[in-house]
């Protein structure tokens, strides 16, 4: 039996305690963020942000509402990343988590290309970069604990359990309140099924979920491996350089902005 998590957007209040609990358990550093006019931050998942709540202001039959979504690795039943990985650094465990082994990975980043959700992140700013993503708290699961985000959720929007049981619960919730939910458990069938399952009051495409078929995404790893590795190496080098320059510029403009604020703060 495989574990899963059911996320119910009707129960989530967007408090983002899950984001903090994830960073705490995984000892991830805070990102330097700015408010860009939304209540959402950091702007996207990264090597130091494995999960985040996405905020949507949605309209449903003339009823306007705030709808939240939790983003993290979906831990697919048939993960494209694991299929794409030439060295089996990414593997689907029978317990549910798609786990990653630093010692095997050699940095090809095919997993990034293969993932239909754009989840695996590369540590561009490290000299020895690895792929980073939600671990499904495999280390906690092994000790009989639920994932850190589920543990901290104050409203029960996150529910951890056997994936099969969660699908039953999700169906019951939809049946009990058909006016509150769209009749769709995202993750039940998408790309062959996901360990993370979603309930929503509005269609999932409005929340930014990709519309996917029920067939697992497969990538022929060997064919991909044969394709011009020197180009890949060069691209990687260039992209790392570009990334570092952008980072430096952002930091400098941040400092300038802060200095400006200091002067204007008491006007």
């Amino acid at each position, binding site marked *: 039996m495989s574990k899963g998590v059911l996320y119910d957007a009707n129960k989530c*209040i*967007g*408090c*983002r305690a899950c*984001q*903090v609990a994830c*960073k*705490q358990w995984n000892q991830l*550093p*805070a*990102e*330097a*963020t*700015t*408010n*860009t*006019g*939304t*209540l959402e*931050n*950091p702007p996207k998942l990264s090597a130091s942000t494995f999960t985040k709540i996405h905020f949507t*202001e949605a309209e449903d039959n003339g009823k*306007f509402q*705030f709808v939240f979504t939790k983003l993290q690795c979906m831990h697919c039943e048939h993960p494209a990343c694991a299929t794409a990985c030439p060295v089996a650094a990414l593997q689907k465990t029978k317990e549910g988590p798609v786990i990653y082994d630093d010692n095997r990975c050699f940095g090809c980043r095919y997993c990034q290309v293969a993932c239909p959700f754009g989840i695996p992140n590369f540590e561009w700013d490290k000299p020895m970069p690895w792929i980073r993503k939600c671990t499904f708290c495999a280390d906690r699961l092994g000790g009989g604990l639920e994932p850190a985000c589920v543990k901290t959720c104050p409203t029960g929007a996150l529910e951890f359990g056997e994936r099969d049981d969660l699908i039953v619960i999700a169906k019951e919730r939809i049946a009990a309140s058909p006016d509150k939910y769209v009749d769709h458990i995202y993750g039940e069938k998408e790309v062959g099924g996901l360990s993370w399952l979603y309930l929503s009051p509005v269609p999932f495409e409005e929340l930014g979920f990709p519309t996917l078929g029920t067939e697992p995404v497969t990538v022929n790893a060997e064919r991909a491996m044969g394709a011009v590795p020197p180009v890949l190496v060069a691209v990687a080098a260039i992209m790392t350089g570009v990334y570092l320059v952008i980072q430096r510029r952002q930091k400098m403009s941040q400092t300038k902005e*802060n200095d400006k*604020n*200091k*002067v*204007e*703060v*008491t*006007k």
Partner: protein
Amino acid sequence: MLAHILPGYLNIPVESDADIEAYLKRTGKHPDATIIPQGLAGDSSSNWWGNARKYIVSLLKAWYGNAATGDNDFCFNYLPKVDPKINYTHIGMIEAMNHGKIKGLWVWGQNPAVGGPNSNGARAALGKLDWLMVADIWMNETAEFWKRPGVNPSEIKTEVFILPVACSYEKEGSISNSGRWAQWRYKAVEPPGEAMPDLEIMNLVMLKLKELYAADSRPQAKPIIDLNWNYGEHITADAVAREVNGYDLTTGKLVASFAALKDDGTTTSGNWLYCNQYSEEEGNKCARRGTVDSHPRQIGLYSNWSWCWPLNRRIIYNRASVDLDGMPWDNDHPVILYNTAVKKWEGDVPDGGWPPINQAEKGAKYLPFIMKPEGLSRLWGYDLVEGPVPEVYEPWESPLDRNLMSGTKNNPCAFIGAFMNEQGEPDQYPCVGTTYRCTEHWQTGIMTRNLPWLVELVPDMYVEMSEELAAERGIERGDKVIVSTARGDIKAVAVVTRRFQPLIVDGKTIHQIGVLWHWGYSGMAKGDSGNILTPHVGDANTTIPEYKTFLCNVRRA
């Protein structure tokens, strides 16, 4: 805050209270105040405040020990007495500082430079003090007011003392919640550096004060010399918890309940409402961690988790939840219910153990609101200064020129500050501002703006507005904007959202601006304080600040 009371809701004495008797008569906390209502099923009022003499005497015995005797009215005249014409609340205190009436200020775990209304006025007021002591777990805006942006530190004469204190996980003690539970917390880690629990700081200061005044023969030194302060060099929260509960001085044992307190000086209690929280048999009940709901109908009281004042009664005035026969109005969630067979109340601790009105003897049919002299709840609020019936008033700054509900526009009894408290007019400030919090930051932000994980979530000061207002002012989502009032301007990021909608009032379109207030010039994440905008206006009865509505305008920065 709570400047009107001593511990246990005993009123603060005023200058004209010559003795305890006069004090109790004036405050209505006297057996003579009992009113027996006519024409009701209930024919008796317990007027529990008629017991107040026992509570004030026990409090004075706790504070002044052997010095407090029947002959000297238990040192009642050691208590500070207030002038009823002066407002002693937060707003009143800032005004008094501005008028030079207050020379020194102790600030414990508060941040008035950000948290109170009209921050510019509050910061200027701090500069009029001779000295300021700030005790906090982080450096805050109040402690750093003298070097805030835009001022010259050499022009500020206030001497500032900063005492680093332990946070709640670095000390033992109780925490009270708004459900009246007192929950005991243990120390998890040692405080960093020189930080100390505030209790220990207070102990050291008091010991020093006693030393300084020991040889002073002036009458004003007596309350310090006679103060019963016997904790030794290292005070413990446990010792204070016992003292707050109180002792029977004839036996030396902890008093079991406030029913055992006496007015003859043979009992002590630091707060009569906390009697019963510590007992000889059960120890410190605040530390209880019972996870079984012992209520017969399991309504979720969990009465064996921590302790709740008074007497572990989880829901006060609970005799109002039953009918005249003691049967619950809400049968699905009975708080208490009367078991006629055994003539006993079941469930929560009843508010007075008397039988239900229909089953009680004539003359002992007690009404449920035991703290009121008439035993009843009040729709007619005759002790409210602008009562007795509720009225709707426009705020001090309003976009309307009249009150649409009645003939009087503003509350005639509201407290209006006099210092740096300019009033805006709607032609210059047509929008209505309101302040509120976000989930990720706490109060003035001192405990959260220094935590990188929370700063990452909400890094910058922001304001929220409708798409319509943003379009009118040419503001795009994420633009830097300036929100201005007659009292000051702030810079913030604009969050433009359909969650804000223009209001149509009296045929006029009125735009609202939502202002967060957690930011300041100290700590890791800095930003302008929302309270720069709010006025120094207080509610007529409590002087709670009018944070929620003021006139403002917004433009692109």
